[in-house]
């Protein structure tokens, strides 16, 4: 049965149904679109693109930027974007259930010994005694939306500490930062390249590490449309291959510091095109360096962490309880941990 999605709808309106049926994969100069956020966690795509790894793999790649992870997942479902990197959210799982998207690899993960995501407290709450996550009982915790990764993190932290928190949906990261700075909410958790400058300003305080509560947390994953995952294995493999090369370059320069100071600077230079592009390099560099977190080599995927996230979403009633790992993940492309 032919599924009816937006692309086909546009095709139908244009009266050219047959022409929209996918053409067979061309090995060379296959045009693909990759969704990205302007975060260092998307460095894999940026580095691979800048170093020409996608072109080498025969992919004519276009980066498409989003303000939040949620619209990116929807854009993949609608066929406007082929690959994306984002956190596992309730929306992503729902789209997977509807047969629209599939997780195919891992991107950002928490790792012992590397500075990961931070737990933040507002100055007002901090002064009132919220100096450690154990003091979160009865506090408000910021999140973008219900079913976001912030919701997952906050919930896991609260469960581990045996406290209860109230979640405040604020839609956008900017709004959460504003609410935290002005003391409208008490606590939040976020990647280090946002957490550290905030803490540096004195308006908020870092009170803990997410990795203490969710070890080996698979923060973001690589995903694509179900159609690509099922029918375009070669395309997915070429993409992941090129992407992984970018990841290796990034990890080696920023975490293993293989190129020393120069290597870091060259990498920061490269990333500055995409991250904090609106700020001068000298101002952006600390943010980019602070944001360094390990990207999964070979886009390896931590299945245990993904499974934990899925079951949490199900336990919270945010997604259908019948969704299995097979529906969410296609583990055939990468190494699983």
């Amino acid at each position, binding site marked *: 049965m032919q599924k*009816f999605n937006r692309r086909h709808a546009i095709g139908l309106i244009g009266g050219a149904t047959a022409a929209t049926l996918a053409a067979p994969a061309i090995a060379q100069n296959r045009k693909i679109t990759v969704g990205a956020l302007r975060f260092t966690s998307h460095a894999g795509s940026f580095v691979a693109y800048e170093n020409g790894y996608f072109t080498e793999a025969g992919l004519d790649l276009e980066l498409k930027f989003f303000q939040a992870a949620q619209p990116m997942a929807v854009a993949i479902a609608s066929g406007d974007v082929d690959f994306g990197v984002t956190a596992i*959210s309730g929306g992503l799982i729902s789209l997977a259930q509807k047969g629209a998207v599939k997780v195919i690899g891992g991107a950002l993960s928490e790792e012992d010994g590397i500075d990961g995501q931070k737990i933040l407290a507002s100055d007002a709450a901090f002064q009132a005694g919220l100096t450690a996550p154990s003091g979160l009982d009865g506090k408000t915790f910021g999140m973008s939306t*219900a079913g976001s990764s912030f919701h997952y993190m906050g919930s896991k932290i609260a469960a581990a500490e045996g406290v209860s928190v109230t979640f*405040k*949906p604020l839609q956008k990261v900017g709004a959460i930062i504003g*609410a935290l700075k002005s003391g409208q*909410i008490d606590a939040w958790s976020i990647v280090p390249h946002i957490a550290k400058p905030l803490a540096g300003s004195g308006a908020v305080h870092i009170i803990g590490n997410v990795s203490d509560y969710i070890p080996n947390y698979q923060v973001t994953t690589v995903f694509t449309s179900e159609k690509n995952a099922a029918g375009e294995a070669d395309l997915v493999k070429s993409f992941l291959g090129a992407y992984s090369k970018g990841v290796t370059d990034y990890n080696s320069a920023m975490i293993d510091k293989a190129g020393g100071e120069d290597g870091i600077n060259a990498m920061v230079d490269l990333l500055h095109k995409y991250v904090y592009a609106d700020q001068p390099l000298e101002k952006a560099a600390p943010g980019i360096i602070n944001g360094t977190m390990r990207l999964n080599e070979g886009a390896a995927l931590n299945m245990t962490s993904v499974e934990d996230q899925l079951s949490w979403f199900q336990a919270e009633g945010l997604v259908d309880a019948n969704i299995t790992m097979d529906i969410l993940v296609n583990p055939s492309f990468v190494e699983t941990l």
Partner: protein
Amino acid sequence: MPETHAQPVPFRGGGFRPVAIRGAGLAVFASLLILTEWGTRSGWISALTLPRPSDVVKTFGELWSTGMLFKHLVPSLTRLVVGASIGVTLGVSTGILIGLFSYVRSGLVPLVAALFPIPKIALLPLFVIWFGIDEGSKYALIAFGTFTPTVVATYGAVDNVDRTLIRMGQSFGMGWFAIVRKIVLPGAMPGILSGLRISLAIGIILLVAAEMLGAEYGIGAYILEAGALYDLERLFAGVVILSALGILVSTVIGAIEKRLLNWRT
């Protein structure tokens, strides 16, 4: 000389006068629903494109039976009632002052014109700082959103009050407040009420925006959560509730108009 040729004058009137046909709207509605139901069942509309109407009904049933419907509806209605009451009261008062005093008019009309096109949603973060993340900012957003259209409708309506009626009131020695209460306000009521239809519709739209920040319960929060989870059934159930709210508000204003404006010809 051709013989006199007689023929009836051709009819040229008619048309341009649509009449209401009973049930036509309902039929369009029902056939769209049936089409969607059939399309989603047979599969040519994917689960990604539209939810199945029967599933939306089921979701609505669950909302009802679990009592969540009122858990969401009560805070939303409270926000709408409180916010709109503040906005409409201030709006009508300001509109009357603009309608009656030259200095107020000259001073405030440009301000109102400047405030009107501001997307109130854009000011939400600011309102959060000013009025707090809890109910205050939500009331403020809805109040602000309903204020400007009410002001514009009210002073327009006051301008349209028959000046001879005001002269008449003065000629009978009525005081300023008596003229405003007994002549200006009732005379402006038709314009105020039709402005109210627009203001309250804007209020409902802003309800969703107001619940973007820090609302755990509420129809808007429910819709936003459903959107974030890509849960189309819940999304549509929420939208249907908002539509019903819109129809309810419109009906209530219609009833008020019928009661208060029965003097209109």
